[in-house]
């Protein structure tokens, strides 16, 4: 097809069309994974191990959150039994909820200045 259009108009085919043809009619398409028995077994084992690992991670994270929550609840209860006034002020809903602009999400590589140690209160 590519040859036809070229010979007719004498202009090269559009790159986008070329790319589509490349991905559709490339002699190496499709490239199925053909596994032997032992290889398939290995693959299955790796897959199961990965699923198990992920489940463990999820569970651990869940337990950690639960422990933190329990700790917080116990502290609040202890505070309530110790001093009602302090407790009421501790669990009161705060009105001032604003985003913290200095927050950064974790990155793969650090910033040039790893940490601003020389920060001074204005």
């Amino acid at each position, binding site marked *: 097809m590519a040859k036809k259009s070229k010979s007719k108009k004498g202009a090269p085919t559009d790159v986008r069309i070329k790319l589509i043809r490349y991905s559709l009619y490339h002699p*190496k398409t499709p490239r199925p994974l053909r596994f032997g028995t032992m290889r398939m077994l290995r693959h299955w084992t790796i897959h199961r191990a990965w699923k198990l690992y992920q489940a463990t991670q999820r569970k651990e994270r869940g337990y950690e959150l639960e422990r933190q929550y329990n700790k917080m609840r116990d502290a609040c209860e202890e505070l309530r039994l110790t001093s009602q006034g302090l407790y009421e002020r501790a669990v009161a809903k705060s009105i001032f909820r604003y985003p913290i602009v*200095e927050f950064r999400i974790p990155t*793969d590589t650090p910033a040039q200045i790893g940490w601003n140690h020389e920060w001074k209160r204005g």
Partner: protein
Amino acid sequence: MNVSCKTLRLGRLRGACLNASATTQYFFETPRLAATVTHRSYSSAEAQPNPITPLPVANPPEGALKPIEAHGQFPRKDWWDIAAGVVISRPPLLTRDLPEFEQSYYFYQRRLNDRLQLPFARWFYFKKGTLAEDEWKRKQAAEKRYQPYGPRAWADELLKGSTEHKTDPLKDYEHLVATTVTGEEETMSIMQARQEAAKEAEARGEEVEYPSEIVEKPFPRTTQADIENNTKRLDRKMSRTLYLVVKKKRDEHAWRFPQSRLSGKWEHLRWGAQRTLLEAAGQNMNTWFVGSAPIGFYKYKYPSGHAQNQVGKKVFFMKARILAGQADLTNNKQDLEDFQWLTKDELKDVVGNKYYKAVQHMLVAQ
């Protein structure tokens, strides 16, 4: 007048106090629920009166004395000191370090992906005969990558004991920069040559302008503080959460989170925590307190003879984060002499076992 008042009081208290000697002193006795109902530690339990913030009494009868004074002993014998502690953390700056298992799993998946992909369309990205194409070819030849199209395409797995996945270009950032197809390598060598030329010219005494660095390489994940294991610096262990612990001038139980007793009648936990941090670590820290509720507590009894009336101390920990700055213990008001920024694991060895057990569950592992 007097009689009518008395009957009113009696009516309100439903005859709970029937001692008729009210003419001299009126004893206000709250109906003690605890005497009839068995004591329970959960939410239906009665709040314990505290010297700092006394229990709000609903409608105290006229002329009655305050409950604490009425008990005839002040201060009470069995109250606890309340202190606010600050768990100030530096959140992780970097993504977590991948464990060995994950590293090799991702490597395995990348290789499988290579086997499924079509070959790289070089003719699309590079024009024939350009420098860029030459450089790409050179890099491909130098890299000795796994070839997913050749006769040995099936050999995509790592052999036992191989460490190939650890020097994988997609993991090692420095290597990645040096071998990307965008030509940083070439540019960097040119820049290096220019800088050397500038140095030589300067040595000869000519005035030169140093060429600026164009290519910025990513910075390594381990810093100088990591190598020195400098626990005072905040750019150490950047993929973990660090917690501030301070050392008091004493031999036992010296290391712990900053804490101090609530002062005054009206200070609540959050204010107390903010004041504690200010007194302990100075003002040059940009901090954010997460909430007003405590995230954990630690209570201990005083040794006998330590205090006259207090049983012990209850420390309620408040959560905070540091965003910039550094702790500074000069002129601190809490008799502190040292501080450290530690991860959860390191904390265990520094604060004692008992303290660690009390606080471990409110800290995050990573």
